[in-house]
């Protein structure tokens, strides 16, 4: 009988262990609080396990290096926080248009700019979607526990490899630095997905050819000679300005994710079916929201929590369905209303009660409860 493997670890370490579990073999990063523990773990773990770690000169170099490494076949990642995430935006877009799998972990902190390096915030929920210029697909996952820091990082790699696109993991300083006891899954327990590559060696004339809205099937450098560029390109990978091809490819890279939402969507719906007070929250704010919803339930209030785990693409259909039945949508978040702007698109605005905290303190259930105490419930 195998002994189950429990560890009492920090969220950041769980994230790094999840990357290791997924087969990450390259990390290029730059230290930034509160994410640095991830880099430090990888610096130690990777060379012991045949992987490569490099501390690059800045965040832009970090994401550049992981895209380069990924093109040779390595599963690669970087980790950062808000200011570094802002710096990485251009090359996140590069990864999207060039269809290169990478994982970018952002352990969010108070902003804007230098903000509060050691304090939590949910400052980049919208930046994760809209930070990089141009139209692009976005997959962003928001763990709310140490266990999810592990499992969602594994899932991030799987999604990146399958869809051939950057995947963002949005932690925050609380989730990153808190410690919880988790069970490390056995090898093989969680399915690991690897990118498909064409079988041919030598010349690869159409690395970006795809059937319908499928991901392209690029070979790895060293196996086949082909061209990769950040310019709009056709299925040969070479630049084009042909309006029909540009439009087609711009749409394809977005639809390749949005036509397979079933593979990306993930959320948690707690007591949502009959909820009259529906909370909408992610990450550490969702833990407070869950507790306050359960407390309200004890008092006889029909409260529930809708928690997107995949934040982008936003699970709009499920959310809208529950929101329709609710009288109020309470949106607690550690920013000044980013998730609220998303909720506004899928429900009546006058139902929404934002609960915003940007003082660097964790958002607790008492804050949520007192914010809705005026309601006649």
């Amino acid at each position, binding site marked *: 009988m195998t002994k189950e493997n429990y560890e009492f670890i920090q969220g950041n370490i769980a994230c790094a262990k999840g990357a290791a579990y997924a087969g990450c073999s390259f990390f290029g990063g730059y230290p930034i609080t509160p994410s640095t523990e991830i880099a430090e773990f990888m610096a130690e773990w990777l*060379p012991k396990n045949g992987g*490569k770690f490099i501390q690059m000169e800045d965040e832009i*170099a970090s994401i550049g*290096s992981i895209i*380069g490494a990924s093109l040779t*076949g390595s599963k690669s990642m970087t980790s950062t926080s808000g200011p570094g995430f802002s710096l990485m935006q251009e090359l996140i877009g590069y990864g999207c248009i060039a269809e290169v799998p990478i994982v970018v972990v952002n352990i969010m902190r108070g902003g804007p700019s230098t903000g509060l390096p050691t304090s939590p915030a949910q400052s980049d929920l919208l930046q994760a979607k809209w930070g990089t210029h141009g139209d692009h697909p976005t997959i962003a996952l928001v763990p709310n526990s140490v266990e999810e820091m592990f499992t969602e990082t594994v899932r991030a790699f799987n999604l990146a490899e399958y869809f051939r696109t950057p995947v963002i993991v949005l932690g925050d300083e609380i989730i990153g630095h808190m410690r919880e006891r988790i069970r490390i899954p056995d090898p093989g327990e969680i399915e690991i997905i690897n990118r498909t590559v064409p079988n041919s060696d030598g010349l690869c004339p159409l690395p970006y050819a795809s059937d319908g809205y499928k991901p392209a099937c690029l070979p790895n450098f060293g196996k086949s000679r082909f061209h990769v560029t950040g310019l709009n390109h056709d299925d040969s990978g070479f630049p084009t300005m042909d309006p029909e091809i540009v439009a087609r490819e711009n749409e394809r890279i977005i639809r390749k994710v949005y036509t397979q939402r079933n593979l990306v969507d993930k959320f948690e719906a707690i007591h949502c079916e009959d909820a009259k007070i529906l909370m909408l929250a992610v990450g550490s704010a969702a833990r407070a929201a869950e507790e306050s919803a359960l407390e309200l339930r004890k008092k006889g209030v029909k409260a529930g929590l809708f928690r997107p785990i995949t934040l982008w693409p936003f699970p709009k259909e499920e959310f809208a369905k529950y929101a329709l039945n609710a009288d109020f949508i309470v949106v607690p978040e550690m920013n000044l209303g980013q998730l609220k702007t998303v909720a506004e698109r899928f429900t009546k605005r006058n139902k929404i009660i934002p609960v915003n905290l940007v003082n660097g303190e964790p958002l607790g259930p008492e804050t949520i409860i007192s914010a809705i105490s005026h309601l006649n419930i």
Partner: protein
Amino acid sequence: MFDYSKYLRNEKLPHIWCPGCGHGIVMKSLLRAIDKTGWSKDEIVLVSGIGCASRLPGYVDCNTLHTAHGRALAFATGIKLAKPKMHVIVVSGDGDALAIGGNHFIHACRRNIDITLIVFNNGIYGMTGGQYSPTTADGDKTATSPYGNVEPHFDVVDLATGAGATFVARGTSYHVPQLDTYIHKGLMHKGFSVIDVTEACYTTHGRKNKKKYGSNLDMLKYQKDNAISIEKAGGMSEEELAGKIVTGVFCDKEKLEFTDKYQKIIDSVSGGAK
């Protein structure tokens, strides 16, 4: 006759560079130097940033990567570290390598990672219409220095050697056989190699400074008439060297290369298993 077609994506020619642009001359020199190495095309990765010179990889039949402005060396570092057996060559303009890419330039030099960087140094941002760059000469009129450039310029050789590159050479787009030798040496050198190639952009730079530079052909002849070998330059004063292009190998030293050094760590901590 040298058979370039082995290395060319013929269907992509003619290339986009202007008539008489030095980039084509330097590209041919690079291809001849690559051929001399005997490397297989599958083992070569050509990485570039953004700019006229950065369009080069699209024309060459090997693994080619056209990245974002200034970031070629970052991508190249990831490629080389992840797969050290690949031969990684970076081609970059002066703006791409030294302005926006300046930080990656000095750190690649410092790391002494086995990548060869060729700087297509024509002292201008050509692709965007001729704005001044970190290597534009003093007083030159450009699109963003209409009254004459007031900024001092980098000496790429000094910058590279100061930052730790272990092979540094300068050639010109006129002195082509010599350039072949420098590029080949750089490719074969184990460590970070920088070859600074003095070139000219008549279209966006020369034309705005006709009194100084003349025609496109004059700009090539300028390189012919003003290049001084490093040996000869040693015995000349600063005034005598003004406006001269000192060519030669400035630095060629052996130093443990970055990926080799990292591999030693892997070997020691992984018990040699990986």
